[in-house]
């Protein structure tokens, strides 16, 4: 971003000018509307999960604990004894208010269960994306600048390897090496940041590197492609024809224009990791959303599965919205068409 010119008659910072622009407001409104429609679809899909279960979900969930009383109690508590339409409307309204029903397992409100697990997953997702970016941006930019040469080939093949490695296998290998063999780092568990920041970081290290390397490999490929596209643009030739320094050309004319696709992929990766790198969480006994989903699937705790799936989809939509806002800030063509 460039600082506003000192002599510019309008001294309002650019971000405020953008924010107050009618087009921005329109775009945000339209984005919200679109998100709302998709959200309703997402809630509907989540709701219908339980309907699709062959047989009676409550009965399946109770399994060997089944008695007529416990059955009736659970059914009533979950509102499953009422007409379908009423259940649906109730679910939608409840979901909007943050009420996602109660767990089949222990009768705890699903929202509590989810919020309990969110910090662990958020730590892992943020750390993973951070590790990924630290790998992807330098590697992707460098490969693009050395397009077609040896360094490019090395980065491309390495990233291809990273994309192809099953993340849970990489987790197992890292545990084998750093925990079982070298004994440097703990192999499992989570400690909240507030309790012990050092232990939090030590426990986060292996899972974060595991997901970060895979996410980083994916992002490397996108960064490289985005930068390659930007390099080929006519205005980069114009910039060179002005005799600008290499750094200015790279930062102002190449990377700045590659930001939009890069932000998009970072958003997707962030959402994916928030959505639970389920298997990695299982491998590292990480008490996040992914682990929760897995446990709930095993226990057939459908309300929790529904709630987790819904929460993750909502997070995805929110991140998308954020990505759109960033696009609007960066690209004047989106602001005022």
């Amino acid at each position, binding site marked *: 971003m460039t600082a506003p010119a000192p002599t*510019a008659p309008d001294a309002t910072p650019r971000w405020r000018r953008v924010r107050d622009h*009618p087009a921005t407001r329109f775009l945000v409104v339209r984005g919200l509307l679109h998100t709302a429609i998709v959200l309703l679809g997402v809630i509907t899909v989540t709701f219908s999960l339980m309907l699709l279960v062959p047989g009676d979900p409550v009965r399946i969930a109770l399994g060997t604990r089944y008695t007529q009383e416990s059955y009736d109690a659970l059914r009533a508590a979950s509102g499953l004894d009422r007409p379908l339409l009423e259940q649906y409307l109730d679910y939608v309204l409840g979901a909007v208010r943050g009420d996602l029903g109660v767990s089949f397992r222990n009768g705890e409100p699903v929202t509590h269960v989810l919020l309990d697990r969110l910090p662990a997953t958020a730590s892992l997702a943020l750390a993973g994306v951070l590790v990924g970016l630290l790998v992807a941006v330098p590697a992707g930019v460098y490969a693009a600048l050395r397009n077609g040469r040896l360094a490019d080939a090395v980065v491309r093949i390495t990233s291809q390897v990273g994309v192809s490695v099953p993340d849970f296998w990489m987790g197992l290998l890292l545990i084998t090496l750093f925990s079982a063999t070298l004994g440097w780092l703990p192999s499992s568990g989570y400690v909240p940041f507030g309790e012990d920041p050092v232990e939090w970081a030590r426990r986060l290290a292996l899972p974060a590197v595991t997901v970060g390397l895979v996410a980083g490999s994916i992002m490397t490929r996108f960064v490289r492609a985005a930068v390659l596209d930007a390099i080929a643009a006519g205005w980069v030739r114009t910039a*060179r024809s*002005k005799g600008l320094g290499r750094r200015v050309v790279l930062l102002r004319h190449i990377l700045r224009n590659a930001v939009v696709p890069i932000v998009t992929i970072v958003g997707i990766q962030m959402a994916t990791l928030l959505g639970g790198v389920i298997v990695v969480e299982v491998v590292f006994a990480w008490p996040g959303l992914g682990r929760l989903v897995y446990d709930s699937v095993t226990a057939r705790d459908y309300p929790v599965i529904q709630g987790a799936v819904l929460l993750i989809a909502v997070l995805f939509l929110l991140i998308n919205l954020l990505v759109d806002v960033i696009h609007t800030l960066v690209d004047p063509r989106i602001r*005022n*068409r």
Partner: protein
Amino acid sequence: MSTPLLRVRDLTVAAHGDPIVRGISFDVEDGQCLGIVGESGSGKSLTVLSATGLLEAPGLTIGGSSVLTDTTGATEIIGASRATLRGVHGPRVGFVFQDPGTSLNPLLDLERQLTEGPETHLGMTRRAARRHALELLEAVGIPDPEQRLRAFPHQLSGGQRQRVMIAIALACSPSLLVADEPTTALDVTTQAQILDLVRGMQDERGMAVVWISHDLGVVGQVADDVTVLLDGTAVEQRPVQEIFASPRADYTRTLLAARPTLGDPRPAPAADAEPVLRVADLDVSFAVRTRTGTRRIRAVRNVGFTVPRGHTLGIVGESGSGKSTIANVLTGQVRADAGTVRLHDADLLATRGADRRDLRRRVAMVFQDPFAALNPRATVERSVSEPLRVHGLATGPERTRRVADLLGQVELPADFAARYPHELSGGQRQRVCIARALACEPDVLILDESTASLDVSIQARVVDLLLRLQEELGLTYVFIAHDLAVVEQISHEVLVMRRGETVEQGPARAVLSDPSHPYTRELLAAIPPAEPRVRSSAP
């Protein structure tokens, strides 16, 4: 004799070992304009961009010498370090490129794009550079520069963008301006303005210009000397007057002869021919989404014309005039709001069902871009025979024979049937497109800029082919084009459009030699004349 500003000797460029530029030498004298002319693939841009050190691509090897000598000193460009070249680009050589749509960074406002050069090279402060940028915008004729400094490229028209590009190129007062096809993507009237602007700037600043173009007419208007390129070699290098008056190389003669020029209208055919296509009171509008809602743009307003059998109607206009919309209505791609289109006695717009399909067949179209108009995955045989299949006009061996006949009609060998489009040249592809249109056995052929994207020498041959086919088959043409000279070659009647409305219509001879409307006169005046400009300031 003084040292030339740019002295290029034995310049060679090879891509992965294949020579593209094969030893070209030329001089650019201080304050003079050198025109570099050639058709596509002649290596004209490669030559100039490598001689000025802007070419940078893996796999390219550049040889020879190119020395830039100005007040700063003498610099060898070929093989120079990046740091040296950065000192050359901007303060000593400025560049303007073909496509103003992609030459400017869409994410930066004009101020940033105009000031970064002077800040780097002239050591200007942000404030001084901004003042300088204002002067530059004013000089290149951008209205309200103070306001425009904050604008982004997408808020400007194509002509304005090219003006800004020129301002950027001139920002550090270079002694040489390289203009690479700077008017090719623009309308004729805009082209004329840009030509004027560059000439004015050149006279005012006394700088030298290298102007690259495929168009001899344009070069004739700006250049003092001309270098004609063919396949990476210079076939002729002489002062512009001599090139036009007494070309020595065969290729130069071909180029000059192929160039469509005004003043040679087509003789009028028999006047009593029956009308084939009658269009009346045509209105077309489009819904355009803006941020405040949907708005309707009236693309065509109240247009009408009649084309008799065997005649050609030329529809002329600049981009946005609505001329292509008419083609789309005639071929059923766009629905008209009002008006009638009659083919003989049938109503083209109202007919439905099987009759409609047959009517579609009888109005065939040839598109502008022959590269895009053929399915890249289909053989020539498949493409040309498609109308035969779809309308059941021929089957089995009969179909194969028809395809061979059609290829013969457009002067292509029959064994081309097995080829894929990428194995053909541009002119050959356009012939295939014409053959496909003829396969429909049409009454009317719509030619929408059908020759516009071809090189001049090929364009001339395609025009000849079209004229011959019209004679032989008694076809009726609607020829849509922006190039008045080509329109004159092929049309009997002309209709001039601007912003969706008819400006003037009538016999080609009358409209083009004695236009009654000022817009038609403006269009005609904007066409580069057949003869080169005599430069008053020439030494």
